[in-house]
């Protein structure tokens, strides 16, 4: 069975600095997708970034980038130039690459941003 592990229940970063959130996963599949979702206090689930397992290049979306290490089954999220609005719960998620793969989430990391 696939599992997703986030070992940092809480993290804190100073505004304008950089923070990295960790995620590891376990799967025997070769075709899959990895995601980072942000859940602010409104509880809305917002997709931050997506990585296809077959792509070696790390995904980047503005201030958000990932470090995808397929052999190590590691998928960390780096947030650069942190802003107050980045404060939220961040969930790492895995989806099997077949059609209509459901998401398997980690337990989440609560990120605080200090002004």
């Amino acid at each position, binding site marked *: 069975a696939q599992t997703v592990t986030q070992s940092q229940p809480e993290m804190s970063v100073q505004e304008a600095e950089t923070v990295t959130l960790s995620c590891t996963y376990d799967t025997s599949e070769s075709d899959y*997708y990895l*995601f980072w*979702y942000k859940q602010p206090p*409104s*509880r*809305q*689930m*917002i*997709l931050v970034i*997506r990585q*296809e397992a077959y792509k070696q290049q790390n995904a980047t979306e503005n201030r958000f980038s990932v470090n995808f290490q397929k052999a190590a089954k590691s998928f960390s999220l780096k947030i650069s130039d942190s802003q107050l609005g980045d404060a939220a719960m961040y*969930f790492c998620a895995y*989806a099997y*690459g077949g*059609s*209509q*793969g*459901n*998401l*398997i*989430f*980690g*337990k*989440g990391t609560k990120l605080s941003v200090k002004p």
Partner: protein
Amino acid sequence: AAGVIQSPRHLIKEKRETATLKCYPIPRHDTVYWYQQGPGQDPQFLISFYEKMQSDKGSIPDRFSAQQFSDYHSELNMSSLELGDSALYFCASSRQGDSEQYFGPGTRLTVT
């Protein structure tokens, strides 16, 4: 851009009552997923539908059932509600071949 619509946004029920949650996917999205997020927990997959057929099943209790209709909207029916069913219920939708799931705002169910 149109987003996933869920109704109602809040629902309060008593134990042993029934509840129906509705989900309207993004236009041209043919796949719907239901997730349950308990307090302080990560979302857990319940069930999914593709082209009106159940495509996958997760940790959905037997007391719950769901379906997807011809207009692609979906309903989650919950019977014999228990206190432990109190949670945020998300619906997400996607398009065939696209791995990205777009989440609705959720329905907050409180069972008293």
